[in-house]
């Protein structure tokens, strides 16, 4: 195709789960910034969530594998830092997926993903990954992770 089928590439990328939160795709996470086509080749612009996020290596490998499996060979990946990744890029639909998965989505008010109570306490600023902090619900007593706003 003369102009390439970037919509098809987006569709394929949207099937790749986030390595740490498989409930959402890497497109929903917002790390794919753009897909362009020129000189018979696709360029996929990627931005890391956090500078040291170990998932970046994993999902770049996943992208290469996914595209090759689907017969796309003419592509390159480019890591960009600006604009810096922000949780503002997540749609409400994505946030709802996180909540259903048991992670409180990024928001100014932290709510328990189980019982929706605002009566929660932060146990630690840093959870199992840099993007999440650890919380506990004072209402239903369940511990949960909160996706930090950055």
């Amino acid at each position: 195709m003369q102009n390439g089928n970037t919509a098809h590439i987006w569709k394929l990328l949207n099937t790749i789960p986030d390595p740490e939160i498989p409930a959402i795709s890497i497109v929903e996470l917002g790390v794919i910034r753009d897909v362009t086509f020129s000189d018979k080749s696709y360029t996929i612009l990627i931005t890391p969530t956090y500078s040291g996020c170990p998932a970046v290596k994993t999902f770049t490998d996943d992208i290469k594998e996914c595209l090759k499996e689907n017969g796309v060979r003419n592509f390159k990946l480019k890591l960009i830092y600006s604009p810096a990744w922000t949780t503002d890029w997540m749609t409400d639909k994505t946030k709802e997926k996180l909540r259903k998965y048991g992670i409180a989505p990024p928001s100014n008010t932290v709510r328990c993903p189980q019982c929706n109570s605002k009566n929660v306490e932060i146990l630690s600023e840093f959870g199992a990954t840099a993007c999440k902090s650890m919380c506990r619900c004072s209402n239903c007593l369940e511990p949960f992770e909160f996706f930090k706003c950055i």
Partner: protein
Amino acid sequence: MNSLIQYTLRIADSSLILGQRMSQWCSNGPTLEEDIAMSNIALDLFGQANGFYEYAAQLDGSRSADELAFKRNEREFFNHQLSEQENGNFGTTTVRNFLHDAFNFLFYTELASSKDETLAALSAKSLKEVKYHLRHSSNWLIRLGDGTQESNMKVQESLNFLWQYTGELFEMDEIDNEMLDEGAGVDNNKLRKGWDEIINSTIEKAKLTRPVDGYMANGSKKGIHTEHLGFLLAEMQFLPRAYPDAKW
């Protein structure tokens, strides 16, 4: 070496060395939550260092980011002496990081509007993470300072000892001035006021006493370091130096 490379290396070096110090807490944290928090901070710092090293390597053209991190000797490192200071007890680490985080927060805020697009982008990215680091170290400083008599005494001791390494954070040399003139660098002197405000208000909440300025160590911009950096590098660089093409 041109000023931009040197300037970029200094930033990368401070992040790498402080990151290495934080990684030494991995599996030694006072609680599981803190262990994870400190390891996460180490990862952030390594990620930041990597971004700046990649840029320095691209400007340099002859050395890779890994070579810059693992194949330079002590006198070729330009990290702040504060960042290489030993972890000591958890309070010492808290104080060291707090003093550094407060500086980094202000430094990246300024550098985010650098005329150099890459430095600006990397700073804007790092700034988001450093905000969390500063919140983490400030909260702990307040808890420890305003904790028991013993915890207060320990963090006050660490603060008194580490104070001598805060002077050089604000120094300007010919490279800083050249970068500033080009609109690409930060006027470190201007950060002093904001730093004092953060330090004073937090120290007050922590019921600690701000040390009186006395002897101030310096020299890291010229590769002069305290005895601790050599040992840190020996451990950090051992593997890639002993097995140059090791893959894992």
